[in-house]
């Protein structure tokens, strides 16, 4: 019998046997968003085709596995709709899924149209940028108040404050350093406790580390949660929240 789990995969995001991909995904070491599941299906179908016989058991196993992955991925993709999806009746869920599939179909359709269009047009040349002998644009300035000039001059005459050595003790690490650190951590783990990770750092470093978190939140890369004031601050990958609870429930 065809061992589905030994199916060799060569994807953009992963190379190796299907089984390894499954365990990496379940251990949250490989974000499913990066994995093109359609490629896996194609690999399986090609493999099946190569064998020249229909292996029903293998197909069944593959269907179960791939549909689990699909569901996982679907949920990971839409963490913000966690509650919304959970409350859906099967029929509503099916309808929602169908709507999204249709949306994707439309995107594909439109992409095909664009490709044909590009094939027609890409050999046509036009100038990008200014013409060689184009007139130069003149910049015009509104009427100004001469007092502004006196003000600017006075500002230049303001004595600088006495040099302070206070800042010498405060060394601000760059925010980017913590951005890198959090991102690296989040590639390995789907969630962590802030307090644990900053234990032993100076107050300034902790502050900068927190700023980095806010930046990641702004970029929609993470979710930040705190059960109560002064409770541990929990950070999770924006895409991870759902998959965990799904795993727990189905285990």
């Amino acid at each position, binding site marked *: 019998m065809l061992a589905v789990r030994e199916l060799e995969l060569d994807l953009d995001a992963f190379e190796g046997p299907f089984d390894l991909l499954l365990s990496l995904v379940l251990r949250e070491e490989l974000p499913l968003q990066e994995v093109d599941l359609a490629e896996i299906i194609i690999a399986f179908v090609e493999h099946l085709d190569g064998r020249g016989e229909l292996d029903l058991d293998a197909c069944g196993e593959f269907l179960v596995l791939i549909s689990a992955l699909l569901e996982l991925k679907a949920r990971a993709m839409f963490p913000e709709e966690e509650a919304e999806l959970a409350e859906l009746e099967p029929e509503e869920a099916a309808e929602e899924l169908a709507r999204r599939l249709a949306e994707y*179909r439309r*995107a594909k359709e*439109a992409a095909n149209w664009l490709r044909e269009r590009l094939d027609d047009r890409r050999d046509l040349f036009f100038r990008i940028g200014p013409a060689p002998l184009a007139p130069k644009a003149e910049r015009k300035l509104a009427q100004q108040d001469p007092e502004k000039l006196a003000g600017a001059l006075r500002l230049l005459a303001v004595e600088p404050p006495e040099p302070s050595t206070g800042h010498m003790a405060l060394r601000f690490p760059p925010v980017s350093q913590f951005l890198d650190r959090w991102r690296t951590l989040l590639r390995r783990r789907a969630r962590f406790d802030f307090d644990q990770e900053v234990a032993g750092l100076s107050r300034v470093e902790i502050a900068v580390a927190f700023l980095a978190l806010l930046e990641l939140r702004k970029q929609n890369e993470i979710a930040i949660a705190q059960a109560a004031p002064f409770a541990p601050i929990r950070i999770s990958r924006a895409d991870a929240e759902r998959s965990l609870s799904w795993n727990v429930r189905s285990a």
Partner: protein
Amino acid sequence: MERPLRLIPTEVTPAAELARTLEALLVVASQPLPVAELSAAAQAAAAEIEQALEVLGERFAEGSSGIVLEHVAGGYAFRASAAATEACARLFEKPVEKGLSQAALETLAIVAYLGPVTRPEITRIRGVNVDGVIAGLAERGLIAEGGRENEFGAIRYRTTPLFERIFGLESLAALPRVDDLGDDVAQIRERLETVAEKRPA
């Protein structure tokens, strides 16, 4: 100017003069010029501009001139004739040097149809991470940032005039409708329901 101004004593009608003015504007412009801009620069009514453009469209047409007038990206612009493509390719880079991948085209389609649209929204529709694709499209100048969802929200993307120009669109409204897939939705749904029924609870 090197060559002395040669005055040719022919009668010039106002319409012909306007057409010449538009030629001059179009040959120095860096982007397609909308009728409104031509009208403001040439100080002529929009109707006159459109008439003059019609004349120019016949003069600068594929098959009769190396310079071709086209209506694109919300305005009018000159381009090289298709007949001169090979010569141009020897001297200039193509607007889109390399083809666009399927992922790039799908993302572009989503931005063109649904834009301004955020990265998470695109991800949602495409089903895979689109960060790299978005960066690539932005670098090629086909899409650009266009504000945020709200003050602290995700950045929204929209297609650029260069996109319309490269794809030869008069405007985004010239994109064909792709929402006539109603049957498909019903079919997909039906299939899903069949599968759902058979799934062990």
